[in-house]
């Protein structure tokens, strides 16, 4: 290798700032590329995580329920399942056996129960008395109802005398988690279940004892006889395969395949009519994970590609800067017959290593920092290889761009006919590029207005229109372009600003005008950064809030516990222990005659509703206020003879003076709100005191700000019944919201990168102008300008850049996010629509950051002035 090339890597160290710039450019490019790969890949992981966490631990593997004709069949199925489980790598099988509802007689009294067995059940119930495993374990509810106690032997018409009661256990509740989660439908009676559909189980801890109840085959053959008499003859059998939650999509897919194999084995060996259901829940999870990942990829990919292209343009700028700094050497080489391409390779040898080091650092940084942006920390197998490949391709492209740019520029500089180009360039500068992005913004805005998300019924994830998603970013880009053009135009004419007499302003503005392109470029970049961050943050915040608000509206409170179905006047009340954070609502479905419509009547207590009802969203809270005051006013104005019940209509319920609903209820609408906690269908909200006392409420629900468990404890401690509970945090599937958050979360990553770039280029621009600034500053000081004036002039100059970028960027970004947010509604059937929250935190951080950067840049500039030695500066 010839000497100038051989020495190039060492020569590079003579200008560390060039090295740093190249390293930084490589880092940023590699970071964006690998962050995109890691982000998109972990979307699948995040989605699988999210889904798996939503179903019962025992339903992660195969889920099989069957009703074999005879008990032997259940036992046979269980051993078959155990065999198959072992073959496909499951630890084992947990078998549950449940009869239909039977009437058990305890002497004089009788109660309904199922006979049930489940592997390991004795560890999983709370025994309140007794505990022997050779008899029956009855629930407290049955013991209370029948007065049965330890040692009593129940009778059943078909089974005769049963073994004695050896334990009383606490009734099971729906907790949505743990050992009983997958069996809840079978062991916890549902509120709407008919009496023969469900009953708390009487456990038989010894499976062989249960086998002994099996009636002779003759009884089975006469199934027609009477349902309740033969329902003991068949056993609903659940086969569960406990397994750890998969952490990656690959693990999930493997688990899914093993589970399928087990299901297929069982399907092949058992009579098809025996199955109630068989399948693999992961099926759907994986499908959803794929959809979620596809959505995010679809939105993120074009953006990443654009960013990377811009990044490569940045790399070209690094090359141009190198040629500017090394023009002397390039000219010497060229004079001695070196080709522009060879000059390009000379640049490559200087800058290549830092670019490669930067790329590796970018990959490392993206991997380490993934906790800050990626939906999941878990690295899929081979994802680092993918990211490495992306970075490698990009690094190669960067090096190619370096060589090509230097070669082309050297060619233009030294050997091209000079005049053709400059005109072409000056024409290019005149083309209003913002108009193009503006037109794109309008186009995507129109698509957005038509609906960016289409929610098909039955689908969990909405279909996404990536063009519409780009709208807020296109707006920001357009405004950044317009601002840059406007600023450039103003600066060119700034000498006319004669009204600004203050020297600090004059200096500052003159310096801005003199630096022209740099100031405009940095402002546009910073504005873009702030705008993109505001968009990302705005949409992410809107989705998060919308998920909270919608699940709040869906459940009606932090937790909702159904407590019974009595008439309005039956004295249903919230126990005192939880009363200060709870309220009672009653719900009835009824129909109105004209127009004929199914509607819900929601009975509320206007005075206590705010204690428990969900008011976490501003719009919902004001709707509640409005509804409550309308009800109170109407109640006050009501004459004693009025039969019509004042009602506030919600969610599109018909309007009317005298709406005749079922059970003799007459409603008169006195108000109307868009949404109300706990209301998801056309509903009339009425006050409890105004409803005729015989009106039957289908379900009474305690709405509470407390966790469901506390509410249930409170109710039970007061001697009340609880039927089922829902909690706000798990009621609504968050995946569609998460998918949107993941999409715009990545935009926030890009915004952060832009912000880092903007800050760096501002500081770099000052550093590059250091000598010039130092000289003019030092001369001004000598000519009697005070230091304070000089400092203020820098504050004016840099403050203009920072202030413009921060103000316009934040306003435009937030506005665009606001426009987009309401259209990006993954659950349009639930109010309220997403709205970008006022970004208080973002604005404060932005303010502090802007001040800090302007301050630091000013300090940097003024320091150069104060330490300058004028004599040296002039001589150089």
């Amino acid at each position, binding site marked *: 290798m010839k*000497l*100038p090339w051989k020495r190039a890597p060492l020569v590079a160290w003579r200008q560390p700032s060039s090295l740093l710039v190249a390293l930084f450019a490589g880092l940023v490019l590699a970071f964006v590329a690998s962050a995109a790969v890691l982000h998109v890949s972990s979307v699948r992981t995040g989605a699988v995580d999210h889904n798996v966490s939503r179903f019962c631990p025992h339903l992660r593997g195969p889920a099989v329920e069957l009703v074999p004709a005879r008990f032997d069949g259940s036992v046979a199925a269980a051993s078959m399942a155990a065999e198959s489980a072992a073959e496909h790598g499951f630890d084992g099988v947990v078998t549950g056996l449940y009869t239909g509802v039977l009437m058990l007689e305890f002497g004089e009294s009788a109660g309904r129960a199922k006979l049930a067995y489940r592997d390991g059940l004795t560890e999983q119930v709370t025994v309140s008395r007794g505990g022997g495993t050779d008899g029956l374990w009855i629930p407290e509810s049955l013991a209370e109802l029948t007065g049965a106690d330890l040692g009593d032997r129940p009778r059943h018409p078909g089974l005769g005398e049963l073994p004695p009661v050896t334990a009383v256990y606490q009734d099971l509740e729906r907790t949505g988690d743990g050992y009983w989660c997958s069996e809840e439908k079978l062991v916890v009676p549902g509120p709407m279940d008919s009496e023969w559909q469900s009953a708390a189980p009487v456990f038989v801890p010894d499976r062989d004892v249960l086998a002994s109840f099996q009636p002779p085959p003759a009884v089975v053959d006469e199934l027609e006889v009477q349902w309740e008499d033969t329902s003991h003859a068949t056993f609903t059998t659940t086969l569960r395969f406990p397994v750890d939650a998969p952490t990656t999509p690959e693990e999930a897919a493997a688990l899914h395949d093993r589970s399928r194999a087990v299901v297929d084995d069982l399907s092949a060996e058992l009579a098809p009519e025996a199955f109630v259901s068989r399948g693999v829940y992961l099926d759907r999870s994986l499908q959803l994970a794929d959809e979620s990942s596809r959505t995010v990829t679809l939105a993120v990919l074009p953006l990443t590609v654009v960013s990377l292209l811009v990044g490569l343009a940045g790399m070209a700028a690094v090359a141009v800067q190198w040629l500017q700094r090394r023009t*002397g050497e390039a000219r010497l080489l060229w*004079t*001695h*017959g*070196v080709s522009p391409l060879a000059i390009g390779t000379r640049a490559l040898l200087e800058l290549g290593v830092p670019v490669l080091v930067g790329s590796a650092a970018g990959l490392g940084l993206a991997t380490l920092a993934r906790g800050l942006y990626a939906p999941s920390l878990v690295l899929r197998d081979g994802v680092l290889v993918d990211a490495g490949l992306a970075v490698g391709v990009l690094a190669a492209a960067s090096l190619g761009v370096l060589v090509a740019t230097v070669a082309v520029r050297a060619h233009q500089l030294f*050997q091209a*006919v000079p*005049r053709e180009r400059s005109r072409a360039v000056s024409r290019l500068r005149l083309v209003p590029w913002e108009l193009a992005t503006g037109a794109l913004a309008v186009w995507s805005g129109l698509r957005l207005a038509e609906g960016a998300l289409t929610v098909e019924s039955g689908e969990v994830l909405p279909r996404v229109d990536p063009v519409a998603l780009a709208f807020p970013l296109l707006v920001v880009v357009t405004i950044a372009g317009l601002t840059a053009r406007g600023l450039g135009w103003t600066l060119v004419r700034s000498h006319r600003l004669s009204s600004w007499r203050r020297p600090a302003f004059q200096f500052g503005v003159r310096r801005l005008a003199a630096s022209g392109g740099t100031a405009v470029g940095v402002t546009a970049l910073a504005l873009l950064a702030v705008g993109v961050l505001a968009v990302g943050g705005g949409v992410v915040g809107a989705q998060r809030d919308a998920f909270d608000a919608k699940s709040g509206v869906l459940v009606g409170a932090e937790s909702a516990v159904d407590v019974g179905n009595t008439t309005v006047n039956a004295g249903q009340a919230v126990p005192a222990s939880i009363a200060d954070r709870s309220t009672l609502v009653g719900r009835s479905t009824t129909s109105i005659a004209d127009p004929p419509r199914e509607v819900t009547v929601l009975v509320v207590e206007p005075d206590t509703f705010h204690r428990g009802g969900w008011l976490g969203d501003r719009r919902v809270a004001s709707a509640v206020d409005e509804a409550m005051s309308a009800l109170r006013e109407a109640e006050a104005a009501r004459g004693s003879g009025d039969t019509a019940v004042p009602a506030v209509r919600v969610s599109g319920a018909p309007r009317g003076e005298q709406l005749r609903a079922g059970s003799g209820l007459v409603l008169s609408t006195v108000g109307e709100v868009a949404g109300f906690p706990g209301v998801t269908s056309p509903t009339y909200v009425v006050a409890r005191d105004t409803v005729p006392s015989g009106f039957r409420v289908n379900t009474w629900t305690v709405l509470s700000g407390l966790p469901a468990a506390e509410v249930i404890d409170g109710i039970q401690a007061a001697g009340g019944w609880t039927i089922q509970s829902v909690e706000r945090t798990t009621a609504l599937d968050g995946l569609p919201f998460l998918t949107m958050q993941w999409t715009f979360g990545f935009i926030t990553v890009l915004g952060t990168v832009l912000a880092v770039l903007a800050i760096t280029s501002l500081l770099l621009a000052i550093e590059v102008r250091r000598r010039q600034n130092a000289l003019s500053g030092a001369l001004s000081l000598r000519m009697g300008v005070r230091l304070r004036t000089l400092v203020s002039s820098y504050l004016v100059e840099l403050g203009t850049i920072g202030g413009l970028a921060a103000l316009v960027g934040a306003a435009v970004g937030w506005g665009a996010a606001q426009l987009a947010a309401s259209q990006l509604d993954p659950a349009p059937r639930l109010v309220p629509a997403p709205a970008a929250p006022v970004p208080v935190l973002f604005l404060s951080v932005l303010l502090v950051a802007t001040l800090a950067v302007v301050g630091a840049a000013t300090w940097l500039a003024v320091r150069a002035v104060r330490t300058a030695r004028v004599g040296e500066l002039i001589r150089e």
Partner: protein
Amino acid sequence: MSEQTTTRTPSTGEPALLLRGVDVSYSTQLTRVPVLSGVDLAVSRGEFVVLAGPSGSGKSTLLRVLALVARPTSGSVQVFGRDVTRAGNPELRRLRSRQVTLVYQNPGDNLFDYLSVAENLRARAQLAGRDDPGPALLERMGLGGTGTWPTQALSGGQQQRLALACAVGAGTDVVLADEPTSQLDQRSAELVVETLTQLHELGVTLVVASHDPRLLGLGPRVVRIRDGRLHPGVEKEGTA
């Protein structure tokens, strides 16, 4: 003298450099500024030409055209009888690396400042596809013992000397120097004049833009240029 430096382009009687009707103009945004107009110039092999003229008269521009570093707007350029007016960039590059060397006015512009004195010599020879001329050449050019020095340790005159030595090491037939003494003090300028004499004696064709009386004292052919035109009338004065 080593084998290498003596292998020069065979003499065929044609001039080393020949310009016919050369115009050069720069276009600014508003107008075209003519810098050279209708320049005819022939420089024979081994000839020593001094180009004299007031500042802004076009000396540097003319040297750049002769050095194949700039192309004329119109007119033709011949090097050793070969018309290179329409030659491609690769051919011009080959000529610049092996046959024609331009020495810039500012000494620093002619050297790789990150290479030592000896390395500069080697680098230039490598660019011409030749072997390292080695310390012997340095010795001969009066730079003996400076081989390991960084170029910044040399005086301006020594730097220009090294630049000229590089041209010799690269075996170029034609050396064009743009005011090589103008930025130097008395002593340094003398070193350069001495070296140019040496080059002339080696048979190198020399075109030097200069007002330096010491150079004129060597008795070169003087070509005067004013406002971009050569003045044939006054050309003879110098040779007298």
